[in-house]
């Protein structure tokens, strides 16, 4: 199938970028990234700089790939970019490919962005303080299956950033909500829940993400189907913590 690609090219963080047009002829069984591989091979052959994009596992779990395709994070299907296949596009179609855009996700080069803000939010409190070796027997804590399942649903987040990319406010609340929820739900996570909520929200704000206006685009585009209930839970955790914690 013949396609026209309009791809964001930007030399580095400080340069100005622009959309550049490319024509490609690809197989419809290809994955989207394989289509870009093909384009890059052609560019290298011509001695031109290939398009830089992030990717790694190519099986939808590492969360590295992140492209804004035809106006939506990860493209027209609710999945990661690497799991998107060309059969979802039509012959002759124009595909616009941009990086995820947010102040807190500065562009590194072409389609590559810096999502270290997510790491810093986790560092602020996204953990249970347990040193190696000090754990008790795994079956001593009973966790009802529905609770474990719900915690898993929150923990399924791959930190790709599609939630931020989709949100008109570039808000990271679905991500942060999921991180707070996965621990808040479990008995092991209860000890630190107040401080965790306070610190992670504070870090999220410090990174410059926008505020949620409950539009729901984040959840609708999330490849791991993280639900808005996580944001509601974060709100409860945070307000509860602010009212009752001893952190002044």
């Amino acid at each position, binding site marked *: 199938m013949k396609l026209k690609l*309009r791809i*964001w090219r930007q030399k580095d963080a400080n340069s100005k970028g622009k*959309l550049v047009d490319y024509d490609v002829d690809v197989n419809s069984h290809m994955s989207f990234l394989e289509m870009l591989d093909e384009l890059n091979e052609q560019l290298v052959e011509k001695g031109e700089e290939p398009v830089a994009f992030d990717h790694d596992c190519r099986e939808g779990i590492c969360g590295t790939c992140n492209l*804004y395709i*035809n*106006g*939506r994070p990860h493209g*027209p299907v609710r999945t990661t970019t690497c799991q998107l296949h060309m059969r979802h596009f039509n012959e002759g179609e124009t595909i*616009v490919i*941009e990086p995820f*855009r*947010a*102040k*807190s996700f500065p562009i590194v080069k072409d389609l590559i962005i810096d999502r270290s803000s997510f790491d810093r939010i986790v560092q602020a409190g996204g953990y249970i303080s347990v040193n190696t070796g000090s754990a008790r027997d795994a079956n001593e804590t009973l966790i009802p299956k529905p609770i474990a399942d719900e915690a898993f649903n929150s923990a399924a987040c791959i930190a790709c950033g599609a939630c931020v990319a*989709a949100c*008109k*406010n*570039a*808000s990271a*609340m679905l991500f942060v909500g999921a991180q707070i929820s996965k621990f808040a739900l479990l008995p092991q996570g209860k000890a630190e829940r107040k401080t965790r909520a306070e610190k992670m*929200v*504070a870090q*999220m*704000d410090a990174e*410059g*993400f*926008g*505020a*949620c*206006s*409950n*539009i*729901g*685009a984040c959840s*609708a*585009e999330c490849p791991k189907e993280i639900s*808005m*209930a996580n*944001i*509601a*839970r*974060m*709100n*409860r955790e*945070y*307000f509860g913590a*602010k009212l009752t914690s001893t*952190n*002044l």
Partner: protein
Amino acid sequence: MSWVAQTLNSTLGRKLVVALTGLFLCTFLIVHASGNTLLFRGDGGQAFNEYTKFMTHNPFIKTVSYLLYTSILVHVVYTAILTFYNQKARPVEYAYSKPSANSTWASRNMGFLGTILLIFIVIHMKTFWYEMHFGNVPIVSYEGQEYKDLYAVVKWAFSQWWYAVFYVISMVALSFHLVHGFRSGFQTLGANHPKYNPLLSKLSWAFGIIIPAVFASMPVVVFLQSL
């Protein structure tokens, strides 16, 4: 910063303020809409005028009304602050974006809808509230008691077609604003539970349609009667 200021300056705290003031304004809408249905009593405005006198003189209602004005102001100021920071969170816009694929128009345009409502409130207050308090409203008496005849002001205002149309458009904006805002307020307060979510959604739709419809019926009926 004290913990209170810290909380209110966080994104979540600001959202909380918007949600609380928004939901408070929703309760006001219920009172306001039900009170105003007295316009339809067909008693030449007596019940309506008695009601307006009560509303402007009862000390408890007066106190609540100041809370109401504050709520409107705070709601506006806090959403403006949030919007300002939200826009800063994405300094470079997408060249091509297709948000309709993942969200409703109303939810994305609360600021625009809110601005219409703010303009509406200013004009609405000028026409009725200002006139009632400081203007020359004719006096009527029922059973020896004197009342300001706000009913007449209403009749006069809504008999002008452009004024009635402006009201109806504003109520459409209110409807969109409420359908998203009502549910959104609860979500911000942390209400999200698989058992109650369907109920909340339905309630949100019902509230967002019934209240504006009741309000919109007033200019429409009065205008039609004036013909």
